């Protein structure tokens, strides 16, 4: 199934020229009840057409349990982003990154390929102090123009510290998860299932919330 239009493909070709190294994507789908699994598969196949720097590995959540547990995949569709050495930096997209969310997805590909900018030194210093596991969930909807900004920041933080993991969760597809976390506005950011805030806030706010986990007051 072709998902990306020729127009979008042409744009992507140009933008993805900036990719430095290869990026591996591990896509998990499952047979049966999986809204958007087929579309996500189509989208990643289209992406492989667009650039040779993206290598997609197709997995089935039930059949490939070892890989799923290695990267802590529980939902489908889920895209795990790995670098050129197939190293996992804790970055996942749960649900199809379509609509506005294609922007955070493409930006993340560039970042993981090594074409991103460094974090501001002050932020990196604060982040370096984090030495226990931090999980960031960013709930989004595909019609939300502010959401990609929040996803990009969370993923960037994951990329910049091995203890931080970050996952986009498309709230409509995974409404059970979003109900559990009382998501009624997006982007909603939940840290270690405990601390939360709403909106595409500045990086400092992400760091403050992370520090709450790290150094509970």
């Amino acid at each position, binding site marked *: 199934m072709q998902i990306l239009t020729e127009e979008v493909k042409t744009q992507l070709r140009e933008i993805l020229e900036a990719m430095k190294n290869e990026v591996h994507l591990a896509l998990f789908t499952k047979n049966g009840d999986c809204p958007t699994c087929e579309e996500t598969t189509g989208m990643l196949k289209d992406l492989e057409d667009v650039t040779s720097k993206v290598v997609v590995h197709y997995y089935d959540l039930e059949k490939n349990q070892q890989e799923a547990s290695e990267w802590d995949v529980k939902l489908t569709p889920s895209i795990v982003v790995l670098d050129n050495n197939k190293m996992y930096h804790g970055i996942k997209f749960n649900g*199809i990154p379509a609509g*506005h969310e294609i*922007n955070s997805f493409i930006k993340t590909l*560039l970042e993981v390929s090594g074409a991103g900018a460094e974090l501001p030194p002050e932020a990196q210093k604060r982040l370096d102090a984090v030495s226990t596991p931090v999980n960031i969930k960013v709930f989004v909807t595909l019609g939300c123009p502010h959401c990609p900004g929040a996803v990009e920041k969370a993923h960037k933080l994951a990329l910049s510290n091995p203890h931080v993991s970050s996952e986009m969760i498309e709230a409509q597809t995974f409404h059970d998860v979003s109900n559990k976390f009382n*998501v*009624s*506005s997006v982007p909603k950011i939940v840290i270690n299932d405990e601390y939360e*805030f709403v909106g595409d806030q500045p990086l400092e706010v992400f760091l403050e919330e992370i520090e709450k986990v790290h150094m509970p007051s």
Partner: protein
Amino acid sequence: MSLSFDLNLSGGLNRPPQKPYLEEIQDVTVIGAGPAGLSAAIYAKRKGLKTLVIATRVGGQVLDTSAIENYPGFSSISGEELAKQFRNHAGSLGIPMEQQKEVAGITGGESVKTVSLKDGSKIRSRSVIIATGSHHKQLGVPGEGRLKGRGVAYCAICDGPLFQDRTVIVAGGGNAAVEAVIDLSKIAQKVILVHRSQLRADDILVKRMNQLNNVEVHLETPIQEILGDKMVEGVRVIQKATGKENVIKGDGVFVEIGYQSNTKVFEGFLDMNDKNELIVDNQLQTSIPGVFAAGDVIEGPYKQVVISAGDGAKAALAANDYINHIQSGEENKNANIN
């Protein structure tokens, strides 16, 4: 679920910054890239002026709109698509855009102004066009702040999908409110519009809303409080006619009661009215010569895409005249010295 792909990472992303233009003195620096800012940039660039656009979010509020049906030439176009057309038009002229950059203030000099960005950088420019638009107003009732993000929402196209098969309340009576009702009626089980006075939305929208069978309308009914413990449970209202209070139950409240100009960073530098809108003359010049303003940010009751785009054009032409004027002034001075 819609499966469009709204790509807006224009070229140049993540490449090493090569921006010699930031060192040079600009003719026109446009702050904001909504309809007003982009239209101003197109006009300024076509006049041959050295033009720079700085914006936190290219596209502006148009991106928050599901469909626009009153911009001439498009009987119906998604906000996303219209924003893209504006952006591409400006992009095709090679206008440099500093995206995701926030302006922290302007300081005036007589011939050159300095625009300071939040990241500490500074841009020098002969003239400035402020097109920073507006943001949604809050109801200002108890419960609103506490339940923000817990059922209180301000962006129907963002948060609407989260209220599938629930009951939602929309506060407001203008176009944005009625549009929100129409959009939400497709997702929610029931939509209740609650407004303190009479509807002032366009007739065509009101008619469309009235045809929906899962919509209920309460006019002359000011909201006193948003109720709920952890999540929104409803609103407490007064019926003006009877003075009676009652509770309308709902799982979400979308606040669509109008807009407030984004002028905070210009406080103390430029004159504003009591609504904090920038005061301009008929050339759209603010209280400081060489600083112009356009779109939702300026005083006036009508905030629309076409009006903002028109203002942008006007401000750019006025800035062009201003620059020609100071340049010929400078030449005269030089001529006198010689």
